[in-house]
């Protein structure tokens, strides 16, 4: 008979392990959320109890169960201004550093990956227009990439449902979108502001042309990768960045457990990762 209880000690043990593997940290307040999903997987895998399940989770060669559980524990959704504090950090802390070190006044290059349906890349463009005074002095190039060509086509169209625009301040919704029968259509100026490209982050041939970026957003993607793929992605971003360039991950992700290539930078709004200015 299956023991469907998760003790406090089990919860702590699981939380520490899961954090180590994925960078996702659960507060005590998430106990119900975590327990519910753990029990679901204990039953599904016929593990009888938490301990048996935990041992299997840790040492299963394929890592399939860890991936299944990770998918369950994460909410795969995107919307405009998601994790807005990182955009605040971009305009308040990161861009001033970048512009101070850019002597040639070349365009500021930003890479948003994965693009998904484009909310992040368009949010970056909107945020720069609305909250970064430097936008009047600097050219900015935004490239947004994804492995999925269908989702890229959707991103280029720029039509969104109410779920996507839920966090947008109403004045910005009014300014940059037109309401139509399919939802909300982003304006042509913003559509033209972003270049959408197809790329497989794991293929060197795909990524080698992606260089000289000042900022890379790669949020809530690495949690879906296995350890080796995370490391490969970290290596790729390193060469895609200019010296002194910044990498922004999702709030539950941490580069420190993946790679030692980056310096951790703690700003008021966010923790981000920087390629050393001296790096060659």
């Amino acid at each position, binding site marked *: 008979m299956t023991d469907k209880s998760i003790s406090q000690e089990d919860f702590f043990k699981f939380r520490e392990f899961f954090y180590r593997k994925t960078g996702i940290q659960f507060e005590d307040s998430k106990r119900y959320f975590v327990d519910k999903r753990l029990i679901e997987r204990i039953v599904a895998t016929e593990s009888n109890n938490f301990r048996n399940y935990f041992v299997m989770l840790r*040492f299963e060669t394929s890592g399939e169960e860890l991936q299944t559980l990770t998918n369950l524990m994460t909410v795969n959704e995107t919307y405009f201004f998601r994790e807005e504090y990182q955009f605040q950090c971009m305009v308040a802390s990161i861009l001033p550093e970048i512009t101070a070190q850019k002597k040639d006044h070349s365009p500021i290059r930003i890479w948003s990956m994965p693009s998904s349906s484009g909310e992040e890349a368009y949010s970056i463009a909107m945020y720069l227009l609305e909250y970064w005074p430097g936008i009047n002095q600097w050219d900015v190039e935004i490239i947004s990439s994804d492995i999925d060509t269908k989702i890229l086509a959707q991103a280029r169209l720029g039509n969104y449902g109410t779920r996507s625009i839920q966090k947008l301040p109403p004045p910005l919704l009014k300014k940059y979108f037109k309401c139509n029968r399919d939802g909300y259509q982003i304006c042509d100026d913003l559509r033209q502001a972003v270049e959408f*490209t197809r790329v497989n982050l794991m293929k060197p041939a795909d990524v080698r042309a992606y260089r000289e970026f000042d900022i890379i957003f790669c949020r809530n993607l690495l949690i879906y990768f296995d350890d080796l793929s995370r490391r490969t992605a970290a290596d790729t971003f390193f*060469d895609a960045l200019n010296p002194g360039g910044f990498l922004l991950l999702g709030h539950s992700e941490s580069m420190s457990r993946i790679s030692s290539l980056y310096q951790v930078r703690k700003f008021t709004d966010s923790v981000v990762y920087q390629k050393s200015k001296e790096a060659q």
Partner: protein
Amino acid sequence: MPFVKQKQSETIGQDERKRVRDCASLELQLSDPNPTARRWAARDLASCPESSAALVEQLKQEPDSSVREIILTTLTQLGDELAVASLVDFLGSEDVALRNEAIEAMKLLPDEVAPIMGNLLKDPDPDVRISAVNILESMRHQHVETWLKEVIEQDAHVNVCATAVDLLGEVGTDYSREALENLKIRFPNEPYISFATDLALKRICLA
């Protein structure tokens, strides 16, 4: 709007490489004076199955940590006999960073490391045996508990056993109970062994 789309975006996917990318040339580029070129060579060598020897040689002398990391990633991707054997050699290195990098890389290679784990756990150097137990900490393999049990039954070095007991506290089952109880008898004057063993046994009882 101040947003631009440069010609670079048009050339994405049509990258013109400045250097020849065949395997032999890539191996030569591992010693290029420019670290970026060395990183790209190391990365592209992932598609050259015979390149482990060249990568290992470069790793031994590579001064740039970013290049070292990418060489290790590629060696992990290749995961062949030579790559694994070299990682094993690095476990005994005096270079702490290299030793730790090798441990991290080996954790990612459960199928390749499993056949040699028995030998690693019997290495004459206790530091190598401790590294081997550290690899088990994150290695996904069904024999992990068996290996740990053998360590606490057979290893004469208290620090190796202590490292294994710590891990058994997390993953041990009834299967290891007797070995844990015997460990306290083997090291009667080691308070930490007594403490860690009792904790592991308590956790097994609670399970």
